[in-house]
């Protein structure tokens, strides 16, 4: 790997670490938030924005990102703040009255960051499929639609309707990333509604399936930027809910728990190490 790339991945790690600090502080301040879900996704979001997506031109001629797991809004806001796309001072408004930072993303509030309002689950993939298809029809096949899916939301049938469409329309400009942390609100995905063999399911629907370490920018980057096989791509990003904080990692209750004073101090200390 060349030195420049290595430097970039190191930068992404630093930014993601800052995003994690913001997640703890923001959710602690608000007394609300999906802390575990936020910490699960920040490395993926930071890698996409910092090293993958071309957002140079004005819409619609851009690579675009859709957060299907809308309850991870906090992870998106904090990543944006850490990347310099959002004033960190705004994080204090999270889930307050009339806030820019709603509990689930609202396009009208942050039009440059949020493509579409999300929160109901099973919506992001159909939207991304439509966007990728619309780009192809309009002669912008090089413009990609990225969508981040929660693994729990894959129980919604609309995902599989969309997967069929992505395959039918040969959308090689669609990249779906599954935040595969194996936990959902009520417990383990494999106990509640088993998804495995997940890779085989996507393959059967006509997708190119790649896996990566969803907390390693280099691994994420490698999966996203592999040469296309002319098919829609899904990346199963192996992640941990609550990743980065010892007492949150892989603990179901942190799906939507928030740190108290002592937990905040301990979490921030761990992020210094």
């Amino acid at each position, binding site marked *: 790997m060349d030195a420049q790339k290595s430097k970039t991945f190191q930068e992404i790690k630093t930014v993601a670490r800052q995003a994690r600090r913001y997640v703890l502080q923001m959710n602690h301040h608000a007394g609300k938030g999906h802390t575990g879900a936020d910490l699960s996704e920040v490395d993926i979001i930071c890698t996409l924005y910092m090293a993958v997506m071309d957002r140079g031109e004005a819409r619609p001629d851009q690579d675009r990102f859709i957060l299907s797991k809308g309850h991870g809004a906090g992870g998106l806001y904090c990543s944006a703040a850490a990347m310099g796309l959002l004033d960190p001072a705004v994080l204090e408004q999270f889930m307050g009255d009339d806030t820019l930072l709603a509990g689930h993303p609202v396009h009208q509030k942050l039009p440059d960051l949020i493509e579409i309002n999300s929160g109901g689950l*099973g*919506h992001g993939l*159909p939207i991304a499929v439509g966007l990728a298809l619309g780009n192809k029809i309009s002669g912008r096949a090089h413009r990609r639609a990225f969508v981040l899916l929660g693994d729990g939301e894959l129980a919604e049938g609309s995902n599989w309707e969309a997967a069929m469409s992505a395959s039918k329309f040969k959308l090689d400009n669609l990249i779906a990333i599954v935040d595969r942390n194996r936990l959902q609100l009520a417990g383990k995905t494999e106990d509640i509604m088993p998804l495995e063999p997940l890779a085989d399911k996507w393959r059967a629907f006509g997708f190119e399936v790649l896996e990566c370490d969803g907390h390693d920018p280099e691994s994420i980057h490698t999966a996203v930027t592999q040469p296309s096989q002319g098919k829609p791509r899904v990346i199963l990003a192996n992640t941990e809910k609550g990743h980065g904080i010892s007492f949150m990692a892989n603990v179901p209750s942190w799906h939507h728990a928030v740190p108290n004073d002592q937990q905040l101090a301990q979490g921030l200390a761990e992020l210094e190490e």
Partner: protein
Amino acid sequence: MQDLRDAVVSTLIDQQEQGANLSVMVADSTSTSKIGPFEKAYPDRVINVGIAEQNMVGMAAGVALSGHVVFTANAAPFLFARSNEQMKNDVCYSETNVKMLGLNAGFAYGPLGATHHCTNDIAIARTLGNLQVFAPADASQAEAIVKHAIKHKGPVYIRMDSDKLPVLHDDYHFIPGEPDVLVEGDDVVVFTLGTLAHEALAARDHGCNPTVVSLPSLWPLDELAVVELIKSHKKVITMEEHALSGGLGTIIGELILKHRLTQPLQAFGIPAYEFTHSSSRAALRRQFSIDTAGLVAALNGLSTAAAREAANEH
């Protein structure tokens, strides 16, 4: 006589020729929508997602994000029932540029039964937010509404029918919200939803002389113009192939209350808590007196029972 769908499709072709950047999405509903001529002219602009309405509406929002003006065209009962959350979140809440055609609304699928009857779409549509809601009575209104929908940036619902019907206007000037007064009569004003305008107009062939109004635009709605029409008559009747809860009768009733009007309102539609049965459209209209005979009986001051009897003799 013209099918509203033909008017819609020829308008879409015309607008696309003029550079409108349209895409049309169907859920195996190419024949239902009669979209063929548009597809022939612009094959890459018709997207068939199969029988998957949730995905169709979600994808429509995505295609709209790519810059297209997107029409969805499928059977109204499935649009509203299957994709309600996508309509709410991806289209209305997000204000994406999607226009939804609800085909064969009301009793159009009569003998196919209640699974295929769409009799609560207006009630849902008018509570979604950010959604303009239209129901054309004929081809001239349908054409004007489609042109408006393309120009309007944001979500639109158009309640469509599939019968061949007389064209009501040679040169129709559509203003969103404006009531379309088809004939001026004497004591009674009849407000009609969609193609029921034709049933109401036919009452004049039976010696009755009501004012007949079509409301092609449910939202926006020029309330004061409607209120003036109510004020200038002694009685109000509404006719709709829709549940009485939340439909045209409710809209007019709300205006009567809001503006403290005293005119009595008689609303013909489907009573609350009733499921419709598998019957011809004519029989279903007769059952609920949502037809010319029912209106004539009401205008002649007959009781509901007598009105039904009169309607059955029709």
